[in-house]
C-alpha cells in the first residue's frame, strides 16, 4: 500500500499529492442544500456538478440534486449567459424550487461571467429567489465555498426591519446533520430561540418513507434567512466555515458577530454555553451541566487509555482546531495537525493551543496526505484521525484509524452521529478508545490479554 511513498522528504512547491481538500463549489453545494426548497446550481461544465453530487451522495448516502449550466466549448468562448438563463428557466419550470443558489466554477470565473448582471436580466417567477456566490475553484477550498455560499444567502436575503426577533442566528459550519441536530438539542435545552443556517437536517439525513420529493422537509426557511437581520446576535461555530456569514450579517444588518471554534472540547463547549447564556440571559440548565459532568467522569475514569498517545489528524480547519483542543484535554499529543485548506491563521491557532498545553506538535495548512504520510514514517504515531482517505496511510503504516470529517465514504451511520457537543465528545472518546484498545489486544500475547481494561 502506497509503496511509492519514500521516507525521505523532498521539498515540493508545485505538485500536490493526495490532497486533503477539494474545491470551493462542493462546499457551496452543501451549504445550498441546507436551505429549504433550494436547488444548488453549478455554473460550469457538467462534470463539476457530477463530481460534487457523487461525493455528497457517497458521504451522506443521500440524494444531492443540483443543476448545471452544461458549458460547451462555444459557451466557454462566448460566455455562459445564454446557458445560465436557459438553466434558470428550466429549473423553475421543471423543478419549481423556491430558490436557485448559483455558484461559479474555475471555468466561469476564468472567462469572467458577470453573475449579478445575468441574474438581474433573467426571468424569475413571482416570489422566487436567485442568489449566487463566487466560488473560483483555484482559490481556497471547499470550506471557503461553504462560507461564501452561506454569506451569499445573507447578503441576498437578510434584512433589518427594526423588529427584533430575539433569535440567535446559528451558523454550524461544514458539519454533518448529526452535528446540527446535536447543536439544536443544546439550543433547545438552553431555551434559546434560533435560526440555523445552513441546516441540512431533514435534507441530508431524510427518512425513507417511500414518498420521495426532490425538496425534502428540512433546510433553513427562506423567511428565516430574511428575518436573520432582526436577530440579536450571530453565533458562528468555526471561523473558517462560518465566520464570513457572521461578518456579512454584521455589515448588512448590524447583528453582532460571535465567532468561536467548533464546540469539540470541554473548554469550547463551556464557552459556547456561557456565550448563549450571556446573549440571551438564559441560565445553563442542569440537564447540560449533568451531561458535562458525565463526560468529565469518563475522562477521569479512562484517562489511562489516552494519555500520552501521539496522534496525527487531518481534515477541515475548524474540525482540526476543535479536535486538537479535545485531544489536549485528554493528555494526548496532537503530533501532526494538517489541513489541505490554505490559511494564514490555521497554523498560528493550532500552535497556540499546543503551546498553551506545553506539547510539541506540528501544524500545517495547505498540506497534503503525502506529506503527512512521510512525517508519520519519520516520527510514528499511535493513532490517525481523518476522512476515508486516511485508511490507506493507516494500512501502509499499520496505525489504528478513527474516521472523523468529510468525506467518509466507506462506513455508514457517521453522518447521523455528532462529534460536537458533549454527546459528540462522548462518541469521540468511544471511537478513539476502541481503536486504541483493539489494537493493543490485536498485538498482545495470549498471556497479556486482559479481561478488564
Amino acid at each position, binding site marked *: 500500500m502506497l509503496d511509492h511513498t519514500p521516507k525521505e522528504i523532498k521539498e515540493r512547491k508545485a505538485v*500536490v499529492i493526495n490532497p486533503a481538500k477539494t474545491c470551493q463549489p462542493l462546499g457551496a453545494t452543501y451549504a445550498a442544500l441546507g436551505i429549504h426548497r433550494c436547488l444548488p446550481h453549478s455554473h460550469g461544465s457538467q462534470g463539476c456538478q457530477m463530481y460534487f453530487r457523487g461525493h455528497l451522495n457517497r458521504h451522506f448516502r443521500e440524494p444531492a440534486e443540483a443543476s448545471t449550466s452544461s458549458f460547451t466549448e462555444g459557451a466557454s468562448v462566448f460566455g455562459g449567459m445564454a446557458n445560465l438563463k436557459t438553466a434558470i428557466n*428550466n*429549473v423553475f419550470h421543471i423543478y419549481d424550487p423556491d430558490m436557485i443558489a448559483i455558484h461559479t466554477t474555475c471555468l466561469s470565473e476564468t472567462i469572467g461571467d458577470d453573475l449579478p448582471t445575468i441574474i438581474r436580466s433573467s426571468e424569475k417567477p413571482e416570489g422566487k429567489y436567485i442568489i449566487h456566490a463566487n466560488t473560483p475553484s483555484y482559490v481556497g477550498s471547499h470550506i471557503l465555498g461553504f462560507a461564501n455560499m452561506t454569506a451569499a444567502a445573507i447578503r441576498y436575503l437578510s434584512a433589518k426591519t427594526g423588529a427584533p426577533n430575539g433569535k440567535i442566528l446559528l451558523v454550524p459550519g461544514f458539519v454533518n446533520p448529526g452535528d446540527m441536530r446535536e447543536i439544536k438539542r443544546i439550543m433547545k435545552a438552553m431555551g434559546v430561540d434560533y435560526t440555523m443556517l445552513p441546516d441540512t437536517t431533514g435534507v441530508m439525513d431524510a427518512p425513507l418513507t417511500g414518498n*420521495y420529493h426532490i425538496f425534502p422537509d428540512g433546510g433553513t426557511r427562506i423567511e428565516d434567512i430574511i428575518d436573520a437581520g432582526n436577530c440579536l446576535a450571530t453565533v458562528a461555530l468555526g471561523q473558517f466555515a462560518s465566520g464570513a456569514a457572521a461578518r456579512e450579517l454584521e455589515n448588512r444588518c448590524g447583528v453582532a458577530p460571535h465567532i468561536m471554534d467548533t464546540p469539540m472540547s470541554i473548554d469550547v463547549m463551556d464557552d459556547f454555553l456561557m456565550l448563549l447564556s450571556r446573549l440571551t440571559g438564559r441560565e445553563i440548565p442542569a440537564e447540560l451541566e449533568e451531561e458535562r459532568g458525565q463526560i468529565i467522569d469518563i475522562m477521569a475514569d479512562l484517562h489511562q487509555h489516552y494519555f500520552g498517545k501521539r496522534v496525527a489528524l487531518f481534515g477541515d480547519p475548524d474540525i482540526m482546531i476543535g479536535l486538537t483542543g479535545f485531544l489536549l484535554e485528554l493528555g494526548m499529543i496532537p503530533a501532526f495537525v494538517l489541513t489541505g485548506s490554505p490559511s494564514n491563521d490555521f497554523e498560528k491557532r493550532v500552535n497556540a493551543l499546543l503551546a498553551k498545553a506545553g506539547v510539541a506538535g506540528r501544524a500545517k495548512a495547505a498540506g497534503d496526505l503525502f506529506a503527512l504520510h512521510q512525517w508519520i514514517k519519520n516520527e510514528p504515531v499511535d493513532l490517525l484521525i481523518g476522512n476515508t482517505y486516511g485508511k490507506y496511510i493507516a494500512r501502509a503504516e499499520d496505525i489504528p484509524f478513527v474516521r472523523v470529517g468529510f468525506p467518509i465514504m466507506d462506513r455508514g451511520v457517521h453522518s447521523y452521529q455528532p462529534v460536537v457537543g458533549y454527546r459528540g465528545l462522548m462518541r469521540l472518546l468511544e471511537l478513539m478508545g476502541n481503536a486504541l484498545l483493539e489494537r493493543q489486544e490485536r498485538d498482545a500475547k495470549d498471556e497479556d490479554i486482559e479481561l478488564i481494561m
Partner: protein
Amino acid sequence: MLDIAVMKEEVTKILDHYKGKTYKSRKDHVLVVDSSEAPQEIVADCRTVPGIITERGCCYAGCKGVVVGPLKDTVALTHGPIGCGYYSWLTRRNKARMNEGDKHNYLPYCFSTDMQETDVVFGGEKKLRQAITEIVDIFNPPSIMICSTCPVGLIGDDIQAVARWSQEQFGIQTIAYGCEGYKGVSQSAGHHIANNGLYKNVIGTGTDPSVKKKYSVNILGEYNIGGDGWEIERMLHSLGYTILSIMSGDGSVARLRNAHFADLNLVQCHRSTNYNAELLRETYGTDWIKVNFLGVRATIKALRDMALYFGDPELITRTEEFIYGELEAIEPEIEKYKAVCQGKTVALFVGGSRANHFQGLFEEIGMETVLAGFEFAHRDDYEGREVIPFIKENADNKNIENITGQPDEKMYRLLLSKEKFEELNKEMEINYFKGMIKIMTDGSVVVDDINHYEMESFMKVLKPDLFGSGIKEKYVIHKMGTLSKQIHSYDYSGPFAGFKGAVVFAHDVAMGLTTPVWKLIKPKWRRDAAPERTLAEVL
C-alpha cells in the same frame, strides 16, 4: 407484456411537461421500442439542456477518470485546480494489483498542480513544469500523463510543449491530453481524446514480438470493475489465450505498447474504445469482435465467437468443454436466485455500454428490462454501427480530433483470407456492433441522457422493481422505496463477469429484493390493519 401504444402515450405525457426549446431538444432522445418501425432512430451525443439536472459528466471525467486513470504504471497528473484530480481519485472501481514483474502502481495516488489564482492569471505552464520535475525527482515513473481541466484550455497553457520539454529534459515519456471539461457534450469526448493519445504515443511502440504467443488478444473497454477483468483473464487463460493488453482496467502502459501484436481485439465497452479497435484494424489489420462477458449466454457467445474466429478444432472443443464445466457448477445456484427474481422488472440507466450489457444478466434471472438508457452513448450504441455514416457532425463533436489509421508498412497483416473472412462473417459479427435497441422488447423505453425529472416520471409510470444506475440516482430510488443497484460500482461487490460472476450478480439482486427492510417502510400504525381471524370463526 408491455403495450406499445400505452407506453407511447405515457412518454408523450412526460415530454409534454417541457416548454419550447427544451421540448424540442428532448423529444427525440426518448423512444418506445416498436419493431414494426425498425430501424428506429434516436438522438444521442448532443448537448444537454442547461438546468435540466443531467446525470452526465465531462470530457475530463471520460479521459482521466475512465480511460487513462486505470493505467497503473503511469503518473496521471491533473493540471488544474484541486477539485478534478481530487474527485477522480480512487472513486471509480478500476481495481489493480502488482502482478509478477510489476514495479509500479500509482493508482492510490492523486497528482494535481492545484492551480491557484496567480497561475490562472499568469499562466500555469511554469507550475506544471515544476510539478513534473518534482514527480520525476520523487517517483521516477516510467511515464507521465498530463490531463488538463477547464481553465487550462481557457488560459492557453501549451501542455503539448510542456510534454515535449519533459520528455527531452528527463527522458520520460510524457503524454498531454487536452481533455478540458467543456469539450464535447459528455464523458464521451474524453474517451476519444484518451484513445487518440494512447494510439499515437503508446500502442505499437513495443518492439519485442516474442510477447506474442498463440491466440493473442487485447481486451478493449474492460475496466476491471469489481475484478471483472480478472475473471475474464481466468477464463481466457484456462482456454489457452494470451492477453497482450487490457485497455485499461488493471492495465499498464508497458503492456499496451504491445497491443499491435495481437491476432484479435475483443471489445467489451464499445463506446469508450471503438476508436482504438478501428485504428488497430486500419493500421495493423487486426479484426475486432464485440464481446460481452456480462451474462452467461453472452459469455458463452463471446467464447464461442473467439474460438470460431481462430477456427482451431481443438480450441473449439476445449471451449465447449469449458463452458459445460462452468455451467454445471453455476446452474443450481442461479436457479436458486432466479426463483426470487422471476417476473420482476428493471430499469437501467448507465454509461455508454452497461445498460446494454446488463440486460442479459437480468433476463437470465427472470427479470425484464422495461427501460434502458445511456448517459453518453452515440447513435451507433443504440442503433448499431450501420448508422455511423449517417451521423451528422455538430458544433460540439467536430472539434474532437478524428484519426484514421493508415496500414503500417511492416506490421499490417490480415489473419484471415478474404474468403475465410466472408465465410466467418456470416456466422458471427466481425468488426461490427449491433447496438442496444435490437435486443430490447417491444413496448420498452429507451431514454438517452435521462434527467432527474424523466427518471422520477418513468419510475412512477413503469414502477420497476429495481433501478440500475449510479450513485447520483441510487438514493433517490431508495427514497421511493425501490431497490437500486449501482451498475458502475456494483455496490462494492463483484465480479459480475463470466459464469462465476453471474452467480455473484444473481445473489446480489436476490439479496436486494429480499432484504426485509422494504417491508418495514410503513410503520405498523400506518399499515392497513389485517383482519384478525380467530379460531372461533371457523370452529
